[in-house]
């Protein structure tokens, strides 16, 4: 196993070199290329100052030497093993531990490493939040669809997932911002950024004026949750649907009233939509889905009621503020991966359900749930693991769009800015880093594959 990992790690080196070579070639071959001239174009400087700046850039980045030399110099700077130079750019020796230097950004004038240290964690945070969401939702829906093959849930969820998968991320982002963040409709979420300015000075956790208020909030929240779950488990279907339709109606009316310029038609349409959507939740036979959704709904309603009764001496705190900012971007990143993965889960579970071993287990008289989760599901995990590796670059690319729409200062937005301003060092480093992340993702997926399937060995 360890030799396999070492071999894979060594094979990463030519791939990473190739990535930077491709990107560097593109930049060098572009009309105009990257030269000191192209960098200071558009700046209104006197000829003398312009010349001085050009010389400075040439000296700093070696932009007057041929592209091949420039690339080799960049490579030498980046690799931890290589030649060292003294101040006058003369060769001074060969070192195995000289450390790697990603260079200085043209545009920001700061070391690239500093910029990446700021930006990469933000992108990783977005992705780390959406991945577990994608997986839990996809597995829940996919397994359900496979066990109910050909029934209403399967057909409707398949169509829905294909539709969801086809919605471009930018359209979803624009619509979410437009309806739920702009002041023309419901201004519930912030339009941009990751936290408000005030939140940076707030304590980490939310705060209330008094202990009683916390107790009240927890009390109403708990009562709401218990009511919701109880309703989901015990109440007859008609009651459930009726009650939930009522909740939908009042929510629709409330949303309609909260519009900046209330419109009768919009309110009616919205109420009808919510009545069908929330009332439909009560109708479903899937107990797990019903309990979790109704529990969440009850908790939300309970908390809202508790907050209404309280005196309002409430400080949001950094954590809640951050979460509040993250809701829409994470939603945007999640939905398409969720749709894609749930279709895949369905196929994988379906294949295994029809395999001989599953039928044998059923014939032995094992409980349906045991067969499904202990036997079939474990074996269906394999394709999900392989796909997680291909999901990662997709998520990284998705964060380019999401970060641009929601003005989040992550790596994706940095990448767009870097290519727009022809910031060579930054473009090269970002492709290098994202390539490295992706390759490591592939490696981890392959290792997980070996762990999940004892038949696979990499020796």
């Amino acid at each position, binding site marked *: 196993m360890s030799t396999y990992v070492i071999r894979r790690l060594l*094979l990463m080196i*030519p*791939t*990473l070199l*190739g*990535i930077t070579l*491709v*990107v560097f070639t*593109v*930049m060098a*071959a*572009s*009309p105009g290329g990257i030269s000191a001239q192209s960098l200071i174009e558009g700046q209104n400087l006197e000829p003398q100052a312009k010349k001085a700046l050009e010389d400075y850039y040439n000296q700093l980045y070696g932009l007057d030497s041929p592209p091949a030399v420039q690339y080799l110099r960049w490579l030498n700077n980046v690799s931890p093993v290589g030649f060292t130079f003294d101040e006058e750019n003369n060769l001074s020796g060969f070192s195995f531990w000289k450390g790697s230097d990603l260079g200085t950004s043209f545009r920001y004038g700061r070391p690239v490493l500093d910029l990446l240290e700021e930006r990469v964690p933000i992108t990783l945070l977005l992705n780390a939040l959406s991945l577990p969401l994608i997986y839990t939702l996809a597995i829940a829906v996919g397994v359900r669809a496979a066990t109910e*093959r*050909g029934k209403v849930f399967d057909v409707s969820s398949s*169509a829905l997932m*294909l*539709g969801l*998968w*086809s*919605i*471009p991320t*930018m*359209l979803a982002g*624009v*619509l979410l*911002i*437009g*309806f739920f963040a*702009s*002041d*023309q*409709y419901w201004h519930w979420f912030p*339009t941009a950024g990751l936290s408000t300015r005030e939140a940076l000075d707030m304590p980490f956790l939310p705060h209330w004026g008094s202990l009683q208020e916390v107790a009240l909030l927890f009390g109403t929240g708990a009562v709401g949750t218990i009511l919701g779950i109880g309703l989901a488990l015990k109440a007859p279907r008609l009651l459930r649907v009726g009650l939930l339709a009522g909740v939908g109606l009042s929510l629709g009316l409330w949303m309609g009233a909260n519009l900046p310029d209330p419109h009768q038609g919009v309110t009616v349409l919205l109420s009808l939509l919510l009545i069908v959507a929330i009332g439909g939740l009560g109708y479903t036979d899937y107990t797990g889905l019903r309990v979790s959704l109704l529990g969440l709904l009850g908790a939300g309603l309970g908390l809202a009621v508790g907050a209404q009764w309280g005196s309002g001496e409430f400080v949001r705190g950094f954590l809640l503020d951050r979460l509040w900012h993250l809701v829409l971007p994470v939603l945007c990143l999640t939905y398409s991966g969720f749709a894609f993965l749930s279709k895949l889960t369905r*196929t994988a579970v*379906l*294949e295994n359900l*029809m395999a001989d071993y599953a039928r044998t287990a059923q014939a032995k008289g094992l409980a349906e749930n045991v067969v499904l989760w202990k036997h079939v599901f474990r074996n269906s995990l394999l394709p999900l693991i392989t796909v997680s590796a291909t999901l990662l*670059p*997709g998520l*990284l*690319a998705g964060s*380019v*769009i999401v970060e*641009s*729409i929601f003005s989040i200062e992550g790596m994706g937005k940095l*990448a*767009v800015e870097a*290519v*727009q301003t*022809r910031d060579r060092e930054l*473009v090269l480093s*970002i*492709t290098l880093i*994202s*390539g490295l992340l*992706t*390759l490591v993702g*592939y490696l981890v997926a392959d290792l997980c594959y070996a762990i999940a399937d004892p038949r696979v060995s990499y020796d």
Partner: protein
Amino acid sequence: MTRAANSLSPPRRGRSYAAQVAGEVLTQWGARLGLAWIGLLGFLAVFAPFLANSHPLLLSQDGQLDSPLVRYLTPADVTLLALFFTGLILALARASLRTWLGGLGGMLFLAGTLSAALVQPPALTIYEQYRQQEAAGQYDWVVYAPIPYSPKDYQRDRGETGLQPPLASPQEDHWFGTEENGADVLARMVHASRIALGIGFIATSIALGLGILIGGLMGYFSGAVDIIGMRLVEIFEAVPTLFLLLTFVAFFERSLYLLMVIIGITSWSGYARYVRAEFLRLRQQDFVQAALACGLPLYSILFRHMLPNGIGPILVAASFGVASAILAEAVLSFLGLGLVDDPSWGQMLNQAVRSSTFNWWMAAFPGGAIFLTVFAYNLVGEALRDAIDPYLKKSLK
């Protein structure tokens, strides 16, 4: 006697595999709807100048008939129209696939060169002239296109402001509103369907060609070629396609054709993987060994014997690939890295949220068009996969 002869004659040849698959696909409602939408888009793309144009279709001035619309047709318009009618005739004549390809290819060459040489629309267009002359009563009568606005008709003469919601004022009939420069959104959308369809088809063909070539060589030769090829595939896979695309587009000039080539170049790796796996499997089989033993040339073994046996799953991937190529162009335009002045759905969607005001019609119509097109191709791809993959068909009964 004749009846006996009939019954003894060889049975009618069964339908070809392609016809079977096509028949299978067409039984599914999703695929039918998808194909209908793509057909509608194709219609809009071909007849865009006749559907949305500020040049009058026909007018009479001092008793003389004139058709500025026809005068202003570009070589691209004429070529597209010629191709469409060739296709229509071939379809009515129930031509075979080979005639189709030959006919369309020949027509493309013929109409392309002829129209480039003969069709010369006036270089300068001033759209205001028609409205001014009509207002001054210099025309006896005028017939406009159904949408009387061109995609780049920025309407400055009527004092219109940009970003007006649909049907904002009673005398203007902008069904889908106007964009930031005051051009009609519907007209731009009709013309943008050309870009979407063109990018989808041509970029995917380029990617497919590259993928089949590289993947085929990798799978057939394996060994060292395979290792080098796999590194190449990994390079193009390890950088998220969007990053690579951004870099390519940002450093080169923005032209439609270059955009197609670039999207094609950045998205071949998936096809190469498919073809490689397929060829690795096929090269062990007897018919390939037999072809080898017969001393057939390499290209014949690769493309006449192996490729047709592995093309099914690749076509499914290509159908989804068209959707993602369209999406790629839309994303680039959305990020402001697409074509500069030409209409594109992604670029229009970009104007939906401007300085915290939400222009819903810019999100709903162009965004809806992108969604429907991507959805249509995904539906067709899904149906195609069900028709081609016998295992899945069995599992779905």
